């Protein structure tokens, strides 16, 4: 039996058109956050859902977690139809969505967990044992009686994950669990999700993220989501093998690029990201070596090149190849 099954999930929202006084300037628009989503996640699988902001990932997680009723379609969590029996589904589901903003900052970590334990029907004795175990594993035992308002974002996110798994759910939905965390907390949580929750405790996990390296590092299978639809679903390796380019040219430079590199002969697509004042340009070409010299010549006229590499394609390259859309906001893209 599959742990999570969605059958033609559709969820639309009405975006009201702009109005000036009493007259409409723009007409209302219907946005499909989920548009016929079909997905099957196996028991014990760590499944990644990747997509840019607004792709519909959070909407899908909310539908799966019974917080949102879809317009049409069905959701099954370990065989339970969530629309017919949401209470039964909630008992076997653990959800983190909204990150650190899902806790009471005026209460301590321990008090927060005690409260949520009651909502899941965990007895006082069992709750204390479980809380002690989770706080220990999250390395928060010595801070358990401190108010959350004094915690760092990473520490609060740890408590949030502890809350989600407090009732020992069989299926866990993690919506952007490492968003905004510093590298050490992210590393800790990724290791915890993969090794403890998935490999040791055999939990089925649905992870949404727009960090490709996180998805690549953690997930058994990945679905790319864009404009409410699942674009492709496969293992990370198969996804990377699915694009026609075996290599990608990556240039890192300081300065602003003005020219459209995609206009050059032999280049199918180019896109760039900015981080810490450094621009990274990635070029998809039929023959990388052939275009390298002309690309370097153009870039050198506009910016100072720090490094140039020919590398294997990443999931971001696959996503751009398939959708023509970037995964992250801080990217620019120039395509065919």
């Amino acid at each position: 039996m599959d742990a999570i099954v969605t059958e033609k999930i559709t969820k639309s929202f009405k975006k009201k058109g702009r109005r000036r006084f009493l007259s409409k300037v723009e007409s209302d628009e219907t946005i499909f956050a989920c548009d016929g989503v079909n997905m099957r996640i196996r028991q014990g699988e760590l499944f990644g859902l990747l997509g840019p902001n607004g792709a519909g990932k959070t909407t899908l997680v909310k539908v799966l977690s019974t917080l949102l009723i879809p317009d049409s379609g069905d959701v099954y969590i370990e065989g339970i139809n969530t629309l017919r029996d949401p209470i039964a589904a909630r008992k076997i589901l653990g959800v983190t969505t909204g990150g650190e903003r899902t806790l009471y900052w005026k209460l301590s970590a321990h008090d927060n967990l005690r409260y949520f334990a009651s909502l899941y029907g965990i007895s006082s004795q069992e709750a204390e044992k479980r809380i002690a175990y989770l706080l220990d594993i999250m390395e928060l035992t010595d801070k358990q009686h401190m108010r959350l308002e004094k915690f760092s974002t990473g520490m609060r996110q740890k408590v949030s994950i502890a809350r989600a798994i407090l009732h020992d759910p069989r299926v866990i939905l993690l919506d952007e669990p490492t968003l905004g965390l510093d590298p050490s907390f992210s590393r800790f949580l990724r290791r915890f999700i993969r090794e403890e929750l998935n490999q040791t405790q055999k939990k089925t996990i649905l992870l949404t993220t727009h960090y490709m390296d996180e998805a690549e590092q953690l997930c058994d299978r990945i679905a790319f989501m864009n404009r409410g639809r699942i674009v492709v679903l496969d293992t990370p390796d198969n996804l990377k093998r699915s694009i026609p380019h075996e290599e990608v040219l990556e240039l890192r430079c300081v300065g602003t690029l003005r020219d459209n590199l995609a206009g050059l002969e032999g280049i199918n697509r180019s896109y760039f990201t900015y981080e810490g004042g450094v621009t990274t340009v990635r070029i998809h070409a039929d023959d990388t070596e052939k275009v390298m010299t002309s690309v370097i010549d153009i870039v050198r006229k506009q910016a100072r090149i720090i490094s140039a590499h020919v590398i294997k394609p990443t999931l971001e390259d696959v996503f751009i190849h398939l959708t023509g859309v970037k995964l992250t906001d801080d990217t620019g893209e120039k395509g065919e």
Partner: protein
Amino acid sequence: MRRVSDIGVIKAEVTKYLKILLCYPMELVFWCVFPVVWVVPFIFQGKALVGGLTSQSFARLTGTDQYIPYVLIGAILNTYVMSALYGMGESLRSESYWGTLEIILGSPSRRVSILIGKALAESIMTTGYAISQSIICVVVFGLEVTVGKILPILLVVALLICGLYGLAMALAAVTLQIKESHSLVHTIEYFFYLFSPVRYPVDINPYIKMVSLVIPITYALIVVRGIMLLNQSIETLWRNVFILFIMDILFLLLGFATFTFMEKRVRQSGTMGHY
């Protein structure tokens, strides 16, 4: 699969509420004192109008010439109205602001136990405020409270709370959808002030008296003032107690039905987590 204990949820909800409230001590002080202070201008106003603290016209309408205890009882019981109107909706709004509302409503516990927990927590705090206000009234204004009268008064207050929190659930449900309840709450609050005998006897105007019959605090005030100021027994006031009881059932049913309906609506519209 384990069954979620309703008592456990109610207890947890009350504990959480009180712990968070204790983080704001100034709010506690405010509610312990404010409702009594709020009444003082009306006492002075009455005194200025009739040139003293007794009036024959007032005595004819109410059966007692004790104006100060009359308005103080109104003010103390009105604390429960304020708490019900503002508290529950504000509590849900705070939950959605903190980001915890979706987590609570996404848990397998029953909505009714969460709401009862919130209502009970509000009632406990409001009773604390009412006790402190009563102490101020006894010490400063010389209000007389006889120990033997406390039990029937508590019964009436308990009945009042049930009805009011039914109404509060309905208001909280509306808050889930519109995310702002102040304008609606203010309207109801002023409707209650105008049409119930909180500050003045409604017998003064036949239309006001007629409307006051659908407001639960009207009956609670008749009984409490009857016991405290007119030395009437609860047996002679049973008709008012019975009406209050029937209103409780109606308000609770209305409140829970509205909440269930609105919760489904926000789960469809996807606005549960908005604030």
